């Protein structure tokens, strides 16, 4: 493991620009990496982990500048050398794997062309050699059809495979160091572990050093030898992985997996009559069927989690209930009476009863409207509030979601943090005084600590206002935390449903089993174990 030192960063300082004022976002980080060593770099968004990772390549994003410290890669001071020389190193000796492979592959070129580009321009090998090599690496990354896949365009390849293809591309010049920037975050749990495994193996095979950046302890635990925790551009602590997991020293580190400690108390009371009853609903986008015979009941005052991977039809179900997508078959009952299938034909009150909160608060809030109007509009529309009454209501709602009314009422969404935006989404839903709120992946874009805050808020509101939630998510941990009932969906069908206890207690449906088992655990050996077990089952 610990060979000679490959990368040595001392007192790294980086500034970022907002408007034309520069503020320090990385405040003196030290980092030492030996050959063949994998360092896990974890922290929430804004911790500066990606910035540090890129700095290790002597690179700063637009609007960032390295202002202090030394970055020494294999004896070369990356801050002193010429841009040309840095360029010589990038891709050749230091490679980078980005979070979203889908966005980081150039849509205009075939995978193999982009693979060959590095080696050829760096003069490592000729084009033909590069192609053979690519196929070889694709095979090692366990990509299906390694000979053919390289000749496809990015949009023709699934996310998990792209992520592996990108890792292969990073390996093209057999670099000494690879920066993995949240390589699995965007993936479904089931694919995540495959990619994770592939990455871990290839790094070991070539004995490449790596910096693995993520916000998910459990994930990094599987790959990293050491873990460094960052918070707002400063180091919190660093330790060997096992040590870190066994005994985190700092409170912040502990709080990083606090969400797992939060869980709403089990419900004992039996569910009342169904608030919403989805009965044999099928739906399609044009010709493509997306839902087939979906049925379940949703009870007042309870939280129903709808679980499944992307494309399983979770969100589509929501669209059917809200009326955005009239079903091709089946009906949706609200308090026993059928809802008109199409949005247009629903009454204001019917619309008011069902509200929605979106995954991406950024796109769900009109960036040009102030909170006053964002939250006020529904109250104004549905409840006919005007002037003072409206203002008062908006302030109540802000208070309800724990935002100081005076400070926030006249802000624009752009002036809020991710968590705050999501709270505004909640407030906007509440403003309509609905019976049911559909939460579509509302936490998946947030840091774990922020997630916890949102979840607590939601449960509190539920207890206070007797709301019902339909909680769409792919994150099992979240389900464990807040759901009363669970519906598991796969490929547009309901494969499993029932009270949480029943779903999470064996025996499981096979797919549920797969989902549950794929959730990474805080055990460095978890991945190895899981793979062995699965191999054993064949």
């Amino acid at each position, binding site marked *: 493991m610990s060979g000679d030192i490959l990368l040595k960063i001392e007192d790294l300082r980086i500034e970022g620009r907002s408007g034309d004022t520069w503020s320090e976002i990385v405040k003196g980080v030290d980092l030492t990496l030996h050959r063949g060593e994998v360092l896990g770099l974890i922290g929430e968004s804004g911790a500066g982990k990606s910035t540090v990772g890129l700095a290790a390549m002597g690179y700063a994003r637009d609007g960032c500048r390295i202002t202090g410290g030394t970055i020494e890669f294999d004896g070369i001071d990356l801050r002193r050398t010429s841009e040309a020389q840095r360029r010589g190193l*990038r*891709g050749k000796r230091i490679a980078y794997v980005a979070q979203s492979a889908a966005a*980081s592959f*150039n849509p*205009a*070129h075939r995978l193999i062309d982009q693979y060959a*580009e*590095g080696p050829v*321009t760096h003069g490592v090998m000729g084009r033909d050699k590069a192609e053979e090599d690519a196929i070889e690496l694709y095979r090692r990354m366990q990509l299906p059809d390694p000979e053919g896949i390289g000749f*496809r365009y990015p949009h023709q390849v699934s996310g998990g495979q792209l992520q592996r293809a990108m890792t292969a591309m990073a390996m093209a010049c057999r670099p000494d160091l690879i920066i993995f920037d949240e390589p699995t975050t965007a993936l479904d749990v089931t694919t995540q572990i495959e990619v994770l495994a592939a990455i871990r193996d290839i790094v070991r095979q070539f004995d490449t050093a790596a910096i693995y950046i993520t916000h998910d302890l459990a994930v990094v635990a599987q790959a990293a030898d050491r873990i460094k925790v960052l918070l707002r551009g400063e180091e919190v602590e660093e330790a060997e992985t096992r040590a870190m997991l066994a005994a985190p020293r700092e409170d912040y580190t502990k709080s990083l997996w606090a969400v797992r400690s939060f869980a709403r108390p089990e419900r004992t009371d039996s569910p009342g009559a169904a608030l919403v009853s989805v009965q044999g609903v099928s739906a399609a986008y044009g010709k493509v069927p997306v839902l087939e015979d979906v049925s379940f009941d949703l009870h007042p005052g309870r939280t129903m989690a709808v679980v499944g991977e992307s494309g399983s039809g979770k969100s589509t179900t929501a669209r059917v209930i809200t009326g955005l997508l009239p079903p091709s078959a089946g009906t949706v009952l609200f308090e026993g009476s059928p809802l008109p299938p199409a949005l247009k034909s629903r009454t204001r009150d019917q619309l008011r009863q069902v509200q929605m909160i979106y995954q991406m608060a950024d796109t769900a809030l009109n960036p040009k409207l102030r909170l006053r109007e964002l939250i006020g509009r529904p109250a104004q529309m549905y409840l006919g509030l005007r002037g003072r009454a409206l203002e008062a209501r908006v302030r109540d709602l802000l208070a309800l979601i724990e935002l100081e009314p005076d400070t926030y009422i006249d802000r624009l969404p752009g002036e809020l943090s991710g968590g705050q935006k999501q709270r505004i989404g909640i407030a906007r839903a509440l403003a309509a005084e609905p019976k049911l709120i559909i939460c579509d992946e509302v936490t998946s874009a947030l840091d774990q600590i922020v997630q916890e805050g949102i979840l607590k808020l939601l449960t509190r509101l539920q207890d206070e206002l007797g709301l019902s939630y339909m909680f769409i998510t792919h994150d099992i941990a979240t389900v464990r935390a807040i759901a009363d009932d669970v519906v598991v969906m796969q490929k547009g069908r309901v494969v499993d449903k029932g009270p949480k206890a029943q779903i999470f207690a064996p025996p499981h449906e096979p797919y549920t089993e797969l989902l549950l088992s794929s959730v990474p655990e805080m055990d460095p050996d978890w991945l190895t174990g899981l793979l062995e077990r699965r191999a054993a089952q064949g």
Partner: protein
Amino acid sequence: MILTRVALGIGLLFVVSLVIFWATELLPGDLASQLLGQSATPETLAALREQLGLNDPAPVRYWNWLSGALTGDFGVSLATNRPIADLIGARLGNTVFLALYAAALSVPIALTLGILSALWRNSIFDRAANAGALGAISLPEFFVAYILVLWLAQTGLFPSMVRINPTTTMGERLYMTFLPALTLTLVVTAHMMRMTRAAIINLMASPYIEMARLKGLSPLRIVLRHALPNALAPIINVVALNLAYLITGVVVVEVVFVYPGLGQLMVDAVSNRDIAVVQAVALIFATAYVGLNLIADVLSTLSNPRLMHRR
């Protein structure tokens, strides 16, 4: 997809011909009074109208024209009795020639400048190119033309007007039409350049550009190989738009350089109420416009793997 587009295009041409016909109907006076001008007296007018068949009701005349046009026969110029085909033929050639000439000059310049100013954005070069471009488009065409004539023709470098006849060789032709082409170049380059720059800069923030940087590629290669291919669609479209303009919108330049093109013909025909000619030219213009847009769409489809190679 292309077929439907073509169908749409044809429908569009029909609408255009209707609009044009309707507009020319609203114009005060008619061919007869235009031909006789002040000399018109009621009886000669009547005789001429009869002769020209202007007495039929408008719908009838439109139908006559349309049925002719559908069978590829655009009729004869009412004013000169010459078949519209050979009235237009040579001029169409001239117009296209000039358009291509100007395009051949402007497109490379525009793209180069656009790419460079995207590459060195906010540099002096960028700002200068931008200001220059804006300056160029803010001058009326005929004015640009006069200045060029003042500098390049009165000094004897180039002829101030175009005199082409069947015997002119290609070389002479290029030489004689240089000033008009240059004028048009100055007029259209700016727009294309700004769009190219914008389209590329738009992409420079995307992750795959950063990826390319992190692969250690040179800035030029990044712009050319990674940004440009993805910026093609908007660029192609703006080029098509300007080509269409070069074919349809250059009457002023034609007049200044005495260049026998379609624009001049159209304006004459309009002022003479020679509806058959107006219609024919208008249709050619519309066809050029539609055709170029169609080509642009096809090209940008070809340039986009997402649309070319389905999953």
